[in-house]
């Protein structure tokens, strides 16, 4: 019986993938649209044999061995996970635009915590472009609307700029220091002393030794005394020194935690892209960017994560 169960695992996952009734919220959304097709039915009609041949979508011909999982390096290639908003054809067309842009301008590998310099075309500045150096504190969205946020202190004033990664006004993205931090978001730097987010504009790039993995900076930041912009005691931060919490705040923070969520397999499945789709996207990415890289952009191989 055990063998049969493992054999059927793939089928059962496909069942989940097919059926629209995945979650309670999603079901309601689906049931109340009588003028609407399910995403699965649209895909069936796209590959229908009653259709002309020119409308059918290309299929991946061969399966390549991809050296590593690119979803952590380029998270913007993973589509949003709401099943009732997803459409595979749109995602494919969107990704194709992204590859085109990447073949013209290099978008390097970077993480939250890396120190970066971005040059943007600016009609109103005297040199017609502006360069900004800062630490990446946030990375959001996927597809063509992917963006990241840089923070620095200019003239004693904290400054943050949000850049869209596929904006054609971007001239150049440089990674001056490639590293990670202990947290996924560094928004708490807004409530930290300015020394933690001050970087010189003529910082020289710090090269990484060859064949080394991306280092993790284990710096612990000391937050300012309250009031804060957010209730950081609830965020479960790693890269922050211990701070004082009153009894009331501690109890409330404890109540707000959801420790059972890590056992919620269905939620985990729903909140991400399933591994079959993910595998297709990673293969396509590898094929488009790593193998077909123009020689001008070809540099040393990417570091192992």
């Amino acid at each position, binding site marked *: 019986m055990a063998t049969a169960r493992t054999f059927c695992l793939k089928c059962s996952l496909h069942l989940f993938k097919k059926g629209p009734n995945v979650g309670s919220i999603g079901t309601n959304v689906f049931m*109340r649209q009588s*003028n609407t097709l399910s995403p699965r039915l*649209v895909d069936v009609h*796209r590959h229908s044999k*009653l259709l002309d041949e020119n409308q059918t979508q290309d299929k991946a011909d061969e399966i390549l061995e991809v050296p590593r999982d690119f979803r952590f390096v380029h998270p913007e290639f993973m589509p949003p996970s709401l099943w009732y908003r997803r459409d595979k054809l*749109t995602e494919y067309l969107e990704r194709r635009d992204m590859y*085109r842009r990447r073949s013209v301008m290099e978008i390097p590998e970077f993480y939250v915590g890396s120190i970066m310099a971005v040059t943007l075309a600016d009609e109103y500045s005297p040199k*017609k472009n502006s360069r900004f150096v800062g630490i990446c504190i946030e990375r959001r969205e996927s597809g*063509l609307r992917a963006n990241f946020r840089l923070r620095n202190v200019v003239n004693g004033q904290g400054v943050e700029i949000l850049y869209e990664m596929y904006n054609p*006004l971007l001239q150049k993205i440089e990674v001056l220091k490639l590293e990670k931090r202990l947290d996924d978001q560094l928004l708490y730097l807004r409530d930290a002393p300015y020394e933690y987010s001050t970087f010189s504009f003529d910082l020289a790039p710090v090269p990484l030794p060859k064949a080394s993995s991306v280092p993790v900076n284990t710096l612990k930041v000391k937050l300012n005394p309250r009031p804060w912009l957010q209730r950081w005691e609830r965020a479960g931060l790693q890269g922050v020194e211990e701070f004082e919490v009153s009894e009331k705040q501690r109890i409330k923070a404890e109540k707000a935690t959801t420790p059972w969520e890590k056992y919620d397999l269905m939620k985990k499945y729903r909140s991400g892209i399933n591994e079959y789709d993910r595998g297709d996207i990673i293969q396509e990415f590898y094929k488009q960017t790593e193998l077909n890289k123009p020689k001008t952009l070809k540099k040393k191989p990417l570091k192992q994560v």
Partner: protein
Amino acid sequence: MANKCSMLLVRASNCVHNYIHRETLTNPSFISCYQQKRGRRRTCKPPSWFVRRSPTTWDKDLTPENKEFLHGLVEDECKVPVCSPLRDEPWPRGEWTRSTRRTGVLAIKLSTIPQWTKDGRKVYTTLLQVLDNHVIRYTPPEDFRKTAGWKPYWGQKFGSVVVGALSCDPRKFSKEYNHLFMESGVPPKRKLTRFIVTPDAAIEPGTPLTAMHFRVGDYVDCQAKTIGHGFQGVVKRWGMKGMPASHGVTKSHRKMGGTGGGGDKGGIWKGKKMPGHMGMDWSILKGLKIVRVNTKFNILYVVSTSVPGPTNCYVRVYDTVLPNRIRATKEPPPMPTCYPEDISDELPEELFHEDLFRFTEPSISYAEEES
């Protein structure tokens, strides 16, 4: 005699006087009188002239081999449009004038993605796929006037075109529904819709409609059913404020306030905003610009973030009715639609508006001023 009959009918059906007197008894449209209805039609029942869609019988006793054979038969026979040798010559193609109304297409709304213009401005575009569309029927104005769905304010100017999307297995539908597709010779469609056209844009049944029906730079109207929310209260439906959470308020935090005054004009007026069914209603967004067309997958990139309806809903897309936009069109659009033989050169896979940034181009930069 006619006058007396009409008076009787007026009393019986409670309809508008003028229409009865103007018409003759021989015209069937006179029997189905037109009475303007305010508000929305809240019924799930299809109109009375629609045929039954679902089949009355099903092949429950077929063996698997027979089922497979039938499936193969459907794929082989339904794909090619049936061309009779007795068919007439292709219909003459009319010329476009400002008063022409061409047919539209039945698209599927995909999702919204950003694009950039050449001056660095971001525009959000909605993707509409014209998937497997065919013309099912054309009715000239004389006949259309006698049909049940005709409205008197259309006059005698318009005929109608029925467009279908998404071919299906004929075993899925009833015999009557399948008979609707005899004239056009295409497999039965999952969804049908009707467009009002002028007689110079008459189009032959069986003609495929693609995204090339529109050109890059054209303006279109999108009509679809909005996202349904079910029965909703006054705060969500009309954005009323409700009442405070505390300070002695009980049981009326999300209720409306007063519904009307007293005295002479007292009572609740008609059209008062109240709780009720929200969404799932027809809505039109007019004057949307097409900035990019994918000819392989038949996708229109339309500048808008708010095309009505959820993802994967049906959208009726047709030439805009805004008079200024019609006046501004310099070159006439393909009449009645773009046929494959009209395209002389090989079609590029993607067509862009001249102002739209292409991702294969280098980054936008501004030239330095010489001082």
